[in-house]
């Protein structure tokens, strides 16, 4: 089975410099191919460099060495071909739901009517009808992240980067949002890179699961092809076996 490769990391290393003399290696020799329209999950405990890797792919950080390419071209900075959903939502508090979602097209200079059309489409996709005029502080966490998802989608990116997007939600909302993100992804397929520290979330969502070692510098431990068919259930035998396997694989470092 051959796949189109969307995004490639080639021997990416990242070292942060603190106080000019103190070097913190965060990522070491990350080599990874991301396939087109796949749902890739980066799984690792806190402080494993997974968010840094995502920020490098986003272009918000530059690798210390190595190269990240998108469609064969090296990434040199952030661009509208990639969108990001942040753990802390990072919605513009002064914009309404509609204003936030239309922000990407607005930066591109899309005319107002077209912007409205795009905005409406994604407001419907994430199920926020009736909340167009609300400000972010009036929304619950789950709804804020729906806005974050719609805002990321509205820029029609090739790659969608999700940085622990449901980390701040309560367990039930989180589960609901996992279902939602799958539904949205299946309606409108994009290449998704999803960062999480939650094994269940990784198995539930990911087509492939990349586990990172739990101490700095982050290294890729294994890449697991998820054999489970969708829709997945958290309490099936195969799900639990996979969970057990991943936990035993990562036990040493979790």
């Amino acid at each position, binding site marked *: 089975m051959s796949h189109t490769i969307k995004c490639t990391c080639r021997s990416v290393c990242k070292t942060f410099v603190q106080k000019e003399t103190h070097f913190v290696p965060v990522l070491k020799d990350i080599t990874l191919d991301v396939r087109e329209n796949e749902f890739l999950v980066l799984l690792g405990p806190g402080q494993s460099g997974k968010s840094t890797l995502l920020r490098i792919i*986003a272009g*918000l950080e530059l690798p210390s060495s190595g190269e990240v390419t998108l469609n064969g071209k090296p990434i040199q*900075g*952030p*661009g*509208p071909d*990639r*969108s*990001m959903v*942040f753990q*802390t939502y*990072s*919605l*513009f*508090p*002064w*914009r309404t739901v509609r204003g936030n979602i239309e*922000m*990407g097209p607005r*930066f*591109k200079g899309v005319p107002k009517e077209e912007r409205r059309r795009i905005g409406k489409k994604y407001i419907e996709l994430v199920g926020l009808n009736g909340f167009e005029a609300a*400000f*972010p*502080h009036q929304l619950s966490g789950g709804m804020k992240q729906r806005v974050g998802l719609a*805002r990321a989608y509205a*820029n029609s990116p090739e790659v969608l980067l999700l940085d622990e997007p449901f980390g701040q939600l309560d367990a039930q909302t989180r589960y609901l949002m996992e279902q939602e993100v799958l539904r949205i992804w299946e309606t409108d397929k994009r290449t998704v890179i999803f960062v999480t520290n939650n094994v269940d979330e990784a198995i539930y969502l990911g087509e492939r699961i990349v586990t990172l070692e739990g101490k700095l510098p982050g290294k890729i431990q294994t890449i697991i092809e998820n054999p489970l068919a969708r829709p997945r259930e958290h309490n099936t035998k195969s799900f639990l076996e996979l969970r057990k396997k991943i936990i035993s694989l990562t036990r040493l470092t979790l």
Partner: protein
Amino acid sequence: METDSTIVVELPPVQENTPTFLESLVVELPPVQENTPTFLESLKIILMRFHFLSFLSIALVLTFWHFISVYKIFGGTFLPTPWAIVQEIWRLMHQELIGKNILEHTWASLHRVFIGWAIGCAIAIPLGIFMALNDFARAIVKPVFDIFKPMPPISWISLAILWFGLGEESKVFIIVIGSFVPCLINSFNSLRLVDPALYDAARMLGANRRQEIMEVAFFGILPATFAGLQISLSLAWSCVLAAELVGGRSGIGFLIILGMNQYKPAIIVAGMVVIALTAWLITFGMEHIEKLVCPWRRDIKV
């Protein structure tokens, strides 16, 4: 072997014991229904509604004041009754003191406040932002500012009169100094209060440098800047009164000094009441403007 997959949870049966004498007493008490409040609860609802208690507290203070002045508790006739103050304000609205009635005196003070406040903020806001952006500007301006900051603006009055005389300039100068300080502090801090993750979000959505500044920085500094404007306006209002108390031929502060020199406490208290009313109106107006300018802000009650 069980084939039925439904799980039946058996609840313990409701026990029907014959009640003891005490229990029967308890049962016979009328149940408290949530939608029919008790007498005390309905009294509380009435008291809390229509600002009843607010009116009551003001009425109590006015009564207290009235009796103090009627029975001359503090001696002499130096405290007029509340009703006398109302009459005095009414009189001053129709009678001119040094060429102006009380409304014109109020306007004279307000006029100075707005000019001084506008000048102070027009300097402070760009300077504060420039200091936040530029390390050199901060290194040069901040030490000087830190020396001037703790000086009460009123302490400049004598110097201002020596420099600018007793006219408008000296008063406006005091107000400029008074409104400059809080405004500069707020705009200097405003940029740091913007969530840095929002710049990342804007960049990820494809914003160029100019769009990033216009979207994130501009809106991000608005709330803190507006807070600075509010604080400096109320400070400017107290500065103008102090400046007018020292020297001047118009304004509410001058009116109060006039009342003192002519042994007319009614004029003094009337001036104080007008000061309070004006300050309240200014605050009220600013709050409404803030709601229009920054509608995304959570309501913060003081």
